């Protein structure tokens, strides 16, 4: 249970990080809005979180 909570917390932390980064970058981006930046950051998070075992 503790391990699951810890892993869930890390994943949640990564998600929160992505949302904040997307909002900050999206507001400063002239051509891309927050939604597009959020989608791209989400892609990075999904791929990044899925590659733990790869050297």
């Amino acid at each position, binding site marked *: 249970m503790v391990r699951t909570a810890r892993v869930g917390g890390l994943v949640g932390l990564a998600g929160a*990080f992505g949302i904040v980064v997307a909002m900050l970058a999206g507001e400063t981006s002239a051509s891309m809005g927050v939604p597009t930046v959020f989608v*791209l950051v989400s892609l990075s998070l999904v791929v990044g979180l899925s590659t733990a075992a790869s050297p």
Partner: protein
Amino acid sequence: MVAQIGPLVQVGRRKTALALHVLGGIAGGLAIGVVLGFLGVLLRAAIGDALDTVFIVVVPAALIYAALVDLGLLPVRSLTWVRQTPGDWPCSMGHYPGIFAWGFDLGLGITTRIPYQTLLVVPLSAFLVGDLGTAVAITTAYGAARALAVVAAVASATEDYAAVCDAISDRVLTLKKLVGASALVIAALIVIS
């Protein structure tokens, strides 16, 4: 990586080592983001707003291609290289610098083996977005997420890191399909947004 970094964090301070790995991942993502973002800004200066059209066409197309390969629906040879992050860095650089360098190398995303074709779309989108801040956001999120995934795997293991690696390896095909399906959804979202 889990099998390598796992035993090493038992040698020094566990939290310091894992924090350095995450910092390395963030630094690697940030570094490649600055380079690709700068190149993208140069490309935008050269072709102007036409870059937005290029982005809307090329990135979803690349995502669909990568998704079909990752889902196993397109039987073509995957684009990848054999380099892995050197296992002897903690010996040659020192314990903590080596762990940081591992994170940095993996955070770059494109200097080591490419496990999913969808990964290639991350630097491609960072380049074609034509904006430095957005490029840094995209690649830094990747670097941080990849390092956090290692931290999560190490944190969830007791001391049997090889077993954790085996468990992850058993799920590689499932993860690959998950990433492929996510790529399809994201391609659709980019076109819609």
